[in-house]
C-alpha cells in the first residue's frame, strides 16, 4: 500500500501548472483532493513520476452566481457544495449529489474538478453535470475553452481534457420555471461508490407534459452517459407513472454494462432501470412543486 516514488511539484499559478504538465507529458499527473488518485497510486494502478499539486491555486475554489448560471471552481470540495446555501437555493441537485459521495472525510478533501477529471465510471458528479447540461471549462497554454458535459466523458477514466489542460470551472445553467431535478443512487456498501447513480432533470409544460428531460447515469457503463433514449421516450408525453415506467425501461439501452463480483451486467441493467424510474419520479414531483411555487 505504498505508492511508487514520485517528484512533488507545487505550482503557484495556473500557467506554471500547465507548463509542468506539458513538460512531463504521460509521466505527470495533476493532484487535487487526491481521493480518487491516491487510492489508485497505493494499489499501483497509477504510478505517475511527477505529481503536480493544484491545491495551492486557491482562486479555483469558489461558488458564485452569475446571470443565469452558477459557476463552481474546480477545486471546490464536495463538502462546500453540500453545505452551500446558494446552491441549495439555486441548484439543489448539486448539494443533493454531494451528500451522497463517500463520507464526511472524503467530502472534506475531494473536489468536484478532480472527480470529473478522474472520471471514475462509478463517480457521482458525472451523472449530475450530464443531467444539468453543465459546461466544463479548461485552461491550457492555448487558452481557455468550454466543453459540454456530454462531450467530456470519452471512455473509462478518459476525458476530453488534453494532458496539459487544467479543468478550472463547472458552469451550471439554473433551472427554469416548472423544472425539477433529483439524484437516485444505490451505494456500494463498502466503497460508497455508485452501483448505479441516476440524475434527472425534468421541465414540465403548463399542461403537465414533459417539455425537456435530461438524464445522466453513472456506475453502469465504462463511463457516465446521457440516457438519450429515456429522454426521447418522455418528450412531449404527460408525466404519468406509466410514461415514466416506459421511459425508464430504456436506461441501459445500447450500453456496454459493467459486470463485477458484486453485480452481474443483468442485475446492473435492472438497477439502472429501477433507479432511473425513481429519479424521474422525484424530479417530476419537484417540477410540479416548482410550477405551483
Amino acid at each position, binding site marked *: *500500500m*505504498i*505508492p*511508487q*516514488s*514520485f*517528484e*512533488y511539484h507545487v505550482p503557484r499559478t495556473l500557467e506554471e501548472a500547465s507548463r509542468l504538465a506539458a513538460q512531463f507529458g504521460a509521466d505527470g499527473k495533476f*493532484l487535487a483532493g*487526491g*481521493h480518487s488518485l*491516491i*487510492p489508485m*497510486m*497505493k494499489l499501483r494502478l497509477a504510478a505517475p513520476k511527477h*505529481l503536480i*499539486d493544484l*491545491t495551492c491555486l486557491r482562486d479555483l475554489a469558489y461558488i458564485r452566481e452569475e446571470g443565469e448560471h452558477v459557476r463552481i471552481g474546480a477545486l471546490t470540495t464536495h*463538502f462546500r457544495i453540500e453545505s452551500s446555501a446558494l446552491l441549495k437555493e439555486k441548484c439543489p441537485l448539486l448539494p443533493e449529489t454531494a451528500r451522497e459521495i*463517500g*463520507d*464526511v*472525510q*472524503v467530502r*472534506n*478533501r475531494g473536489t468536484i474538478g478532480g472527480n470529473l477529471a478522474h472520471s471514475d465510471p462509478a463517480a457521482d458528479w458525472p451523472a449530475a453535470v450530464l443531467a444539468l447540461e453543465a459546461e466544463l471549462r479548461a485552461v491550457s497554454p492555448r487558452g481557455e475553452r468550454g466543453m459540454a458535459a456530454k462531450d467530456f466523458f470519452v471512455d473509462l477514466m478518459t476525458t476530453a481534457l488534453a494532458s496539459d489542460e487544467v479543468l478550472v470551472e463547472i458552469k451550471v445553467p439554473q433551472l427554469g420555471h416548472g423544472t425539477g431535478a433529483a439524484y437516485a443512487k444505490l451505494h456500494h456498501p*463498502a*466503497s*460508497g461508490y455508485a452501483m448505479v447513480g441516476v440524475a434527472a432533470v425534468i421541465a414540465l409544460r403548463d399542461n403537465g407534459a414533459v417539455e425537456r428531460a435530461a438524464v445522466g447515469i453513472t456506475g453502469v457503463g465504462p463511463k457516465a452517459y446521457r440516457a438519450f433514449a429515456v429522454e426521447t421516450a418522455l418528450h412531449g408525453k404527460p408525466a404519468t407513472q406509466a410514461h415514466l415506467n416506459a421511459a425508464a425501461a430504456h436506461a441501459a439501452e445500447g450500453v456496454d454494462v459493467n459486470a463485477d463480483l458484486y453485480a452481474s451486467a443483468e442485475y446492473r441493467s435492472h438497477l439502472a432501470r429501477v433507479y432511473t424510474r425513481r429519479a424521474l419520479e422525484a424530479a417530476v414531483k419537484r417540477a410540479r412543486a416548482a410550477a405551483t411555487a
Partner: protein
Amino acid sequence: MKIRMNVNGNWREDDVEPRTLLVHYLRDVAGLTGTHVGCETSICGACTVLLNQEAVKSCTVFAVQANGAQVTTIEGLAREGKLHPLQQSFWEEHGLQCGFCTPGMILVAHQLLCRNPHPTQEEIRKGLEGNLCRCTGYQHIVKAVQSAASKMSATEPVRAVAAAG
C-alpha cells in the same frame, strides 16, 4: 522534501519522501501511534485526524500535502491531563470495546459537533458513516457522541481544538 507541520500545537520540521502518507508520518516520524492504520483504502476511518480542523483520512493524504498545516491527532485532544468531553463520554458510555476504531471515531465526532453542536441520532449516524467499528459497538458510540454533545453545550461552545493548541 522538507516539510513543516503543526502537530497538536507544536511546530515540527522533517525531511520526508513525497510518497510518505500522512498516517505513516504521524506514527513513524512524529511517534504518535494513536492514529491507527486500518484498511489503508480510505474506507474504515481508523486513521482519521483533523487537518486544518477538518476530519480527513490520513491514509489518503501525503504528508507533503499537509506542509504548513495544523494537524490534530487523538493525542492532542486532552488538556492538562483532563480528557476531552468526547473522550470522557466514550469512556462513560462504553463507546469502545477493542478500541481500534476509537481515535478515528472521536475525531470524526469532533468534526460533527463543530458543525452541528446538537445532532439528532440520525445525524450522528450519518456523520460517522465513514468510520467502521468491527466490535459492532455503534449503539454505544452514538450514545457517547450524544452525551458529549450535551456536555459540550453545557460548558462552552464547541471550538476547534487545533486553535487552542
